[in-house]
């Protein structure tokens, strides 16, 4: 039973990364109509920024400030990308957005691979979150519990921001009809840039969270992003809440598979995707594309 609970926990943690990443993708897709293929690379950048902050002799900034600084740094980087490149694709077929962000992902990953090789760099768990708790039925490493709770809070906060606040209302209105929202005197291009920054920041935040668990390495986002794409197809990316729930649920299902039938743990998400598509092509919470 111990092993089952351990796998469930691993599943929940992976689920939090899936949820944070697919949430960011959903936010970006809503405003820019682009599937951000560079999302995995920016997630990796988040982890690397945290690593630099800690290991630079002059800075040696630890985990807690990095949790705020890294998403901001990567978010600003993302906004620069949006202003210099993505902006020029407005009105074109959204396949071009996919291709452009794919190219950006190759560049970012390639540069990091040149400087750091492909092997992983260690990142220590912060002192406050070391050790574990005995829950009676299982042993819970504190850091892992923290990741699950914190990402859940961030997901819900993002949901609240978009669905319940004035700013979110503008955002949703601009997705529906940018011209009209512009006529009301709202700077839509700036909002798009900020939205891309927000989505990218969420990816970077996931990167910082994952740094102490998974090693920091240039390709850490490359394979993860394809699983997240499958999560997005299953969830349908129709609603913000939908991508959060699908993300966590699929992580848990993956964890259960690892316990009962480990051979299929790499493929279960893709198999689920096929099954969902056969029954409901729009995805679980999706609208028609």
């Amino acid at each position, binding site marked *: 039973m111990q092993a089952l609970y351990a796998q469930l926990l691993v599943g929940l943690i992976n689920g939090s990364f899936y949820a944070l990443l697919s949430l960011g993708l959903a936010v970006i897709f809503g405003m820019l109509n682009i599937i951000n293929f560079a999302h995995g690379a920016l997630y990796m950048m988040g982890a690397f920024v945290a690593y630099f902050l800690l290991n630079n002799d002059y800075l040696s900034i630890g985990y807690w400030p990095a949790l705020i600084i890294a998403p901001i740094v990567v978010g600003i980087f993302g906004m620069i990308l949006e202003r210099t490149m993505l902006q020029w694709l407005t009105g074109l077929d959204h396949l071009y957005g996919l291709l452009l962000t794919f190219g950006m992902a190759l560049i970012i*990953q390639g540069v990091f691979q040149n400087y750091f090789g492909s092997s992983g760099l260690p990142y220590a768990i912060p002192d406050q979150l070391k050790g574990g708790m005995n829950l009676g039925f299982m042993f819970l490493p504190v850091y892992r519990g923290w990741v699950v709770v914190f990402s859940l809070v961030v997901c819900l906060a993002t949901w609240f921001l978009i669905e319940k606040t004035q700013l979110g209302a503008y955002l949703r209105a601009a997705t529906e009809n940018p011209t009209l929202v512009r006529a009301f005197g709202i700077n839509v291009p700036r909002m798009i840039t900020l939205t891309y920054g927000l989505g990218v920041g969420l990816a970077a935040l996931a990167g910082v969270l994952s740094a102490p668990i998974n090693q920091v390495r240039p390709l850490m986002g490359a394979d993860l992003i394809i699983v997240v794409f499958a999560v997005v197809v299953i969830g349908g990316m129709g609603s913000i809440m939908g991508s959060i729930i699908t993300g966590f649920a699929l992580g848990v299902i993956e964890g259960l598979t690892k316990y009962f039938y480990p051979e299929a743990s790499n493929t279960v998400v893709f198999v689920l995707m096929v099954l969902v598509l056969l029954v409901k092509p729009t995805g679980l919470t999706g609208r028609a594309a």
Partner: protein
Amino acid sequence: MTALTEQTLPVTSRAMRDEMIVFVFMALALAAVPFTGIYPFFVMQALCFALLACAFNLLIGYGGLLSFGHAMFLGTAGYCSAHALKVWALPPELGILAGVAAAFVLSIVTGYISIRRQGIYFSMITLALSQLLYFIYLQAPFTHGEDGIQGIPQGHLFGIFDLSKPTVLYYVVLVGFLAGFLLIYRIINSPFGEVLKSIRENEQRAISLGYRTDQYKLLAFILSGTLAGFAGSLKVFVAQNASLTDVHWSMSGEVVLMTLVGGLGTIFGPVVGAFVIIAMQQYLASYGQWVTVIQGAIFVICVLTFRRGVVGEIAHYFRRSL
């Protein structure tokens, strides 16, 4: 949704004549390769990728469907051909047939699943399906995991042509490529190809005209996947191995890049693109991971400034369809 590619010019006798002249020129130039100092293995490899890119282009350039998982057909056909040749000791022609048949079956299944969604969702589904196959091949015993299937016997095609001789192999690959190319050319210029183009331009209107667009798209997917499989089978004879690299999703990305560089929706574009990218990899190999960065940069530049690709720009300049 704006059109993905330039509106193709109407098929006129002049366009057909232009294309035929270029085709004959291309065939003659490729046939002359063994008499020049060019390394034949490089050209053979490029021809396999050119056929793959042409098959991919059939789907995106004429059907508007961006498959991000075409490596799965290349890799599956490669593995099946390699297994048939090495373990079952089949002659080359049956080995190729086994690979193409596997790609055919795979394209029916994956096509049926993926055409249920459109646009970027279609791309993401094909990508996920190819990653599913990647993990299966990683674990399946017959593919030998990370090692791949190596030392594949080349044998005698139809019992006559000795494929272990580089020149013979070169002409066999060339004939295979030209046959595949002409088949794709024929498909594009058939009534089926015209319907496909109308679906790309405006699917709703095609539906309202009474076409069952899903069936057309599925057929295009099957044709494209099967031809991509044919490229994978030919590649086995050139490389004499089948490995995980051919199924990995980065290979699918390379195919997209080749087609984009050459020109989406142009007939000769994918061939030019494949030669450009393979030559680049060959000559920049010593730069290690910078090759990835350069490829990424080409992607970005093509999408931002150079959307028609090499052949597309030339054709646009001369106002011809190529």
